[in-house]
């Protein structure tokens, strides 16, 4: 047994494997992605023979893992917090049916948010779904709670949520670890339709069973090892949940303060006996948890409680070390000096030099400058920098919003052109259903599927078109073009977006199909490999002719490549060759043709 320096997510993977999970599914999403990646590495390293799957979306991921739990195998499914929304239909039903083998749902929250559409709290979701939830404070604790979650789930026969936040998922800490023994348990489907196929009458009985299970879990949580009172002095007590406990502990250490602290790892059902006894010995209690008031809301008598409901803790944003130090300082009567203000960086995220999406967005803006541009979630969201992204709601919404814009705006006459963009992975995830709906309701718009062959933003996981399974084995492939044709779309064409003039012309034809009396949705598949996986070929080094550059900034605004740099003195643009990826796309973006292929004599 040695010590390994593990990411919180890797520690969770270790805990799941140690607990004997044999089936683990996931959909990539920051900050959850490294759980399955870590598990795949462990699987390979120790020859465990586990089944691991990058599922098409989180609902499917949940269902596949749940089926394993139904037949008695321990299982887990992993997603980011908004992915839990996608899986929620299944989770809520599964809470009623219960499980046979332990089932853990790992849902990773993102207070901040750093990389998400919401700062929702998966612990509040657990209260709604009526499943227990554990909340680790550190990577080390995440490993322990992952294992305990599986055991808890099997002991009480219901799914259990594990809810790490990004500061646990993406922190590294030394963890005692060694080779893992594979888990192998007998598995069998036992027919029980009053449970697995329960109709409403049976659902009432299952609901009563669920309530009893939760009560049994609550009693267990009253003596859970991860919940602990740290003795201290003074009138003010602190209830610190999950990662907030770590920040509180360090802040109190720096301040030299020692109030009593109740550390809580079991967010729901909260151990109200333990909490109540802690409250009774304090005059006031400050509850620190994030991103929302999941424990605070369960406290029946909150007259002594300071938290989000009293406005003492902000209603949005991360519980940063600054904020916690300030809150503790003020409430403990040891105010800390005001920290330097937060700095808003001028550096926004941008598409990489050589990205095919950049070329596609440029062509879209040129072909349809006054269109509405519904878009979606992925690296290509950064097309917003090229003014070619108007909406980002959630996965798959680009297509359903395009449909809604068509029908809503079409009531007054002809709507403006609508050019929706979606990535290949997002299309598989939830674009398919939306496209089917668009087709059968007669909507008219252009859909550009930006196909770089991989789930890029999250770190290059395979897609259904990749032909590789999550466990590295070969797999049959799905083909986007055939799916689109199968839905009934009659205009589907594929093009390399680096051919900017060709893409513009194709988009125009697509627009004609969308407008024609006998037309319909027009799909353009813009296919070009991710630049980080495969640098652009052929290499087209470029240069800018200073005499032709008039400083109009068109390339900076609409091509928007990090390789294009404005010179402070002259106002002209030059190429930063340290950054340029030689894709040649910018050649097509200069109104005065000042950007040319390097080393090719200009045509007089």
């Amino acid at each position, binding site marked *: 047994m040695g010590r390994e320096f593990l990411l919180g997510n890797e520690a969770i993977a270790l805990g799941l494997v140690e607990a004997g999970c044999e089936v683990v599914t996931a959909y990539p999403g920051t900050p959850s*992605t*490294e759980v399955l990646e870590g598990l795949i590495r462990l699987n390979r390293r120790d020859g465990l023979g586990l089944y691991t799957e990058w599922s098409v979306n989180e609902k499917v991921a949940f269902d596949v893992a749940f089926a394993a739990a139904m037949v008695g195998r321990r299982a887990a499914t992993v997603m980011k917090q908004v992915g839990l929304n996608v899986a929620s239909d299944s989770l809520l039903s599964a809470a009623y049916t219960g499980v046979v083998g332990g089932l853990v749902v790992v849902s990773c929250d993102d207070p901040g948010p750093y990389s998400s559409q919401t700062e929702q709290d998966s612990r509040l979701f657990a209260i709604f779904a009526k499943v227990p939830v554990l909340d680790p404070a550190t990577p080390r604790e995440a490993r322990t709670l992952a294992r305990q979650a599986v055991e808890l789930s099997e002991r009480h026969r219901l799914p259990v949520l594990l809810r790490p936040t990004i500061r646990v998922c993406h922190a*590294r800490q030394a963890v005692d670890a060694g080779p893992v023994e594979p888990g192998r348990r007998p598995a069998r489907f036992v027919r029980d339709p009053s449970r697995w196929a329960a109709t409403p009458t049976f659902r009432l009985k299952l609901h009563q069973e669920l309530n009893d299970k939760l009560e049994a879990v609550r009693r267990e949580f009253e003596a859970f090892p991860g919940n602990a009172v740290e003795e201290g002095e003074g009138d003010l007590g602190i209830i610190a949940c999950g990662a907030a406990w770590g920040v509180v*502990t360090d802040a109190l250490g720096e301040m030299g303060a020692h109030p009593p602290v109740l550390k809580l790892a079991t967010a729901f059902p909260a151990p109200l006996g333990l909490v109540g006894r802690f409250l009774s010995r304090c005059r006031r209690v400050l509850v620190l948890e994030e991103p929302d008031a999941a424990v605070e809301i369960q406290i029946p008598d909150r007259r002594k409680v300071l938290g989000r409901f009293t406005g003492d803790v902000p209603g949005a944003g991360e519980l940063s070390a600054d904020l916690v130090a300030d809150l503790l300082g003020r409430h403990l009567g040891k105010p800390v000096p005001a920290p330097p203000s937060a700095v808003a960086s001028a550096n926004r*995220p941008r598409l990489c030099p050589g990205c095919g999406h950049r070329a596609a967005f440029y062509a879209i803006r040129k072909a349809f400058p006054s269109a509405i541009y519904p878009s979606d979630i992925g690296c290509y969201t950064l097309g917003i920098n090229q003014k070619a992204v108007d909406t980002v709601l959630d996965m798959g919404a680009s297509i359903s919003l395009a449909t809604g814009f068509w029908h809503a705006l079409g009531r007054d006459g002809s709507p403006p052109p609508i050019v929706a963009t979606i990535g290949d992975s997002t299309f598989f995830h939830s674009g398919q259903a939306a496209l089917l709906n668009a087709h059968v309701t007669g909507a008219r718009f252009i859909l550009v599927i930006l196909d770089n062959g991989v789930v890029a933003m*999250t770190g290059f996981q395979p897609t259904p078109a990749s032909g590789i399974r999550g466990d590295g084995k070969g797999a049959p492939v799905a083909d986007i073009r055939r799916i689109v044709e199968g839905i009934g779309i009659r205009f589907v064409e594929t093009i390399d977006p680096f051919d900017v003039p060709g893409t513009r012309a194709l988009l125009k034809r697509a627009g004609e199909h969308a407008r024609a009396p006998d037309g319909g949705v027009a799909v353009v598949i813009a296919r070009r490999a991710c630049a980080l996986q495969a640098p652009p070929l052929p290499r087209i080094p470029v240069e800018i002719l200073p005499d032709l550059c008039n400083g109009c900034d068109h390339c900076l605004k609409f091509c928007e490549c990090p390789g294009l740099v404005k010179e402070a003195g002259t106002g002209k643009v030059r190429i930063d060759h340290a950054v340029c990826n030689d894709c040649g796309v910018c050649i097509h973006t200069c109104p005065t043709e000042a950007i040319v292929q390097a080393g090719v004599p200009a045509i007089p």
Partner: protein
Amino acid sequence: MKPLQAVLCGLGGQGIVFATKLLAHAARLEGAEVICSEFKGMAQRRASVVSFLKIGDFASASVRRGGADVVICLDASELDQALSYARPGGVCVVNASADDPDVWNRSGPAGVSIRRVDGGTGRSSNLFVLGAAGLMEPETLRRALSEVSPSGALGENLEAFDRGLEAAAGFDGRRDGPGK
């Protein structure tokens, strides 16, 4: 090793994750407890990245503004961000091109000293800056590098690190971390 709170700032893609891992590994080789952060995703597409590294008996990786003993700034455009984390008496080491007059003439918040180095913009410029930062024994860092560096880049990384060490000798020859 005595307790240390460090912050690394820069842009996604500049090797901050690697630099943080390297420092963490080196500290662990010296027997220290370490907890650090490692952010991924949207920020990695050239946006601002702030990474935390705490050496000692800490329960969380988070560092408060005005709380860092050392801040390492790999991109001069993030210097304001970097300086906001330094504590009075702390040090900020920033990679800035010698022709960037703004950075070379900037003064930091009261009590924070700024060390400017020109490590260039190449792939191993982050190693140059780490060499110049003087956070721990060079031999430990070299050993850590040989254990975590991608094999193809090890030679280049070690060379950049040694050049950074030489550049640091020009400050005040100190190798024992930030001033008081």
